[in-house]
């Protein structure tokens, strides 16, 4: 899949994550993450995002995310929605 236009998904409510995606043609994967649990779960959140991108076969994308303590399933769902909206 390819990111054609900027799109977003999610909310800033507790246990949710707000994700914006942008085209990043030929520049690979770039993730800007802010989280209330950055120190404890920052790596895990990045891992989930990268796995989701791999499953969707996305190679170029810029992700800006603001996490409010979302669990993995929510991170995955919000990223999927944002990507589908960017298509």
């Amino acid at each position, binding site marked *: 899949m390819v990111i054609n236009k900027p799109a977003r998904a999610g909310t800033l*409510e*507790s246990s949710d994550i707000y994700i914006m995606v942008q085209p990043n043609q030929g520049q690979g994967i770039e993730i800007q993450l802010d989280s209330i649990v950055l120190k404890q779960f920052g790596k895990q959140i990045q891992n989930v995002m990268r796995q989701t991108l791999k499953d969707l076969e996305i190679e170029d994308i810029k992700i800006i995310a603001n996490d409010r303590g979302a669990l993995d*399933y*929510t991170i995955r*769902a919000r990223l999927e929605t944002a990507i589908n909206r960017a298509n």
Partner: protein
Amino acid sequence: MNRLRRTILFMPGNNPNMIQNAGVLGADSIILDLEDSVSIEEKDAARDLVHNALKHVDFYGCEIVVRINSPSSPFGIKDIQVITKAKPDAFMIPMATEEDMEEICKLVGKIERKEGILENTIKLIPIAETAYSIENIADIISASNRTIAVLLGAEDLTADLEVTRTKEGQEILYARSRIAHICKTYKIDAIDTPFADVDDFEGLRKDTIRGKGLGMTGKAAINPRQIEIINQVFTPTIDEIEYAQNVIKAMEEAKGKGKGVFSYQGKMVDAPIIDRAETILEKAKTAGVI
């Protein structure tokens, strides 16, 4: 009866916090809602969230029902296409007609086969919320062999009828009775309409008792705080259980003495009384109270 459906709790499908906690609230069934509680702009997001939740969230054995958007809307069919893969226990169909039930049944079957899911795993619960569906509920139920229950939707029904919805519920007496009777005929559950005032617990109790008195077997809840009362009403009381146990005991004693007909507490006990006692004990067992 292997699954209780005393309380079925509506949870908004686009709220992670509510979804991931839904399994601990004490409801027998949970409805993850993609319809009324989700705005048009967020239909896709809720669908993706519920899809992922079904795959990863532990609901501690609660039955998981997904209320899809109307099959005639732009979202309903897509909802089924995405969600079926994550194997919910059932879909709930708003404003269901016979044709909707047939079409959805076929579509679900097709995806089940494709995904290697055992045929007929995923069940259907139509919502009866128009005068038409109340009148034709038998045909709607029998349009699919996946139907396990009917939910009465009184708000839309009374709007359709152009009558006022009241707390007393006189206006839905017929609908409740009809659904209860027909569901019993098909041996499926009759789920009562939710009680709208989430702060009136006495009103909720009365309304639940009223529905149960007409033959409804469970009730929808729109707030977790309603669960306890609904469960209480639909769970056999200690007195009922004791009575049933005594009837069964008396029956076994009579059998031992070779008596076909016997009496308990001065009353003749016949087959319907024994049936009732057995049903109460089975319900109590499933509810974990004995």
